[in-house]
């Protein structure tokens, strides 16, 4: 138990410190790397409460895919560090407002303001499925029965977002010669190979 408590405080401290460094560090590449560190420690916190599936998904999706793209973009940008600092105070009120709203939402979900907690009721419902069943199976049972339509519509929303991004960035350029692999593969032998009898010192015309 002591070890677990120590691990919790270590991961929690690193998460918060890395989160602070995301905002505070001067170099945007460092910011992304600290963000990755924060994601990773959050995953470790999930592991500590026994939510192994969520922890792994967090690492796969956020660390393995989203943050790679962040890093990709930030590394390619030519950013002047000094200019970045100027906007800091201008955006600070908006940032803290968003932070306060998120905090209030979490407190509301936990039922701090009274009126019971819908989230905890849902958790208990899910917990009824858990018991001896492993984590992944328990999540699957709730997600694919009770919340099936919400789950599916979340997928549709993401699909629409993806198609939207493709439509926005698609440029049709005329005169581009594309490789047509199927055509190349279906080309018959007599069109591809010519057997030529070459006379000595004559060469192939």
């Amino acid at each position, binding site marked *: 138990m002591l070890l677990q408590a120590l691990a919790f405080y270590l991961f929690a401290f690193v998460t918060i410190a890395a989160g602070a460094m995301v905002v505070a560090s001067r170099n945007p590449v460092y910011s992304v790397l600290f963000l990755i560190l924060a994601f990773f420690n959050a995953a470790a916190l999930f592991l500590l409460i026994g939510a192994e599936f969520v922890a792994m998904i967090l*690492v796969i999706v956020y660390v*393995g895919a989203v943050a790679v793209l962040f890093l*990709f973009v930030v590394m390619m940008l030519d950013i002047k560090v000094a200019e970045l600092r100027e906007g800091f105070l201008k955006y600070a009120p908006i940032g803290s407002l968003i932070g306060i709203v998120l905090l209030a939402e979490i407190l509301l979900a936990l039922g701090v303001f009274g009126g019971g907690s819908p989230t905890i009721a849902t958790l208990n419902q899910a917990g009824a499925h858990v018991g001896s069943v492993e984590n992944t199976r328990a999540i699957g049972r709730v997600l694919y029965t009770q919340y099936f339509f919400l789950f599916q519509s979340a997928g549709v929303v993401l699909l629409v977002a993806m198609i939207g991004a493709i439509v926005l960035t698609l440029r049709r350029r005329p005169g581009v010669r594309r490789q047509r692999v199927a055509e190349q593969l279906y080309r018959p032998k007599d069109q591809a190979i010519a057997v030529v009898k070459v006379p000595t010192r004559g060469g192939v015309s």
Partner: protein
Amino acid sequence: MYADLIHFFTTHWLGQAIVILAECLAVTVPLLVAVAYMTYADRKIWASIQLRRGPNVVGPFGLLQPFADGLKLLLKETIVPSSANTVLFLIAPMITFMTALISWAVVPFSDGWVIANINVGILYLFAISSLGVYGIIIAGWASNSKYAFLGALRSAAQMVSYEVSIGFVLVTVLLCVGSLNLSKVVLAQAGWFWNWYWLPLLPMFVIFFISALAETNRTPFDLPMSEAELVQGFQTEYSSMPFALFFLGEYANMILLSAMGSVLFLGGWMSPIPYAPFTYIPGVVWFALKIASLLFVFSWTKGTLPRYRYDQLMRLGWKVFLPISLGWLVLTAAVLQFGGLVPGK
């Protein structure tokens, strides 16, 4: 006395820590030796393909060559370019090496021979293998060199693309098993060698292997370090020990992906013929043999195939593998559902 010892190692925190440390060493040390001899085997196989002899001077048949190479790298000077970001430059090879090693915690070597028998083993492997890209991309950026950066960008795009199809392959296998635990994946393939998943999921096995080549930046997908265009890609500025860490990490990754292939498709530690003389051979030997045969195909491809063009590589990943693996996933799910074969029901 004996009972006391057992009590100490199973209940006391210090004893448990010693056991965990010993387990880690028992996996890491043979793995590093395997990496060393993998480089030797690689060179010998290419040499045979090209009708050469390969390393044959240091030790009998050149068997001590990998250690001579390692010692040489250890003794060389570590050069950090003056305009490089020193901290990140040195962290990058460590990340590559570490991610290649920590994945082995969940690999089952034989029945019950696994450091951490966790329920989300497949997801853990997938998560850690998706971290490998950071070592490369950070190395490319921190080197502050055009070649290194271009190599890192290529590598990142390539690894992210092929992870998608590997993900679908993993999902298909776990549909057939009904569990994310790697030991259960192996146990689900019990029986003759045609019960292993390589036959029922043959297209997925092929896709997995080709994606594994792309994930480890091996020929024909070694564009990130294609020497004709990018010197040595993201490794251009590295020398001495940091280079050695990259090198070890790469080979450890190759062995890991071969181990993954054997666990998912070749029945892990299972013997191909489930009868008496063959089942006496310990599972770990079968497992090592399966890994070695997959690694041989890695070297064979490297000695045989020319390099892909970058747009062809992307086309193969997104336009060929992704639709095929997605389609096969739906097909598998349909067969399991309507054939009444859903596991764990």
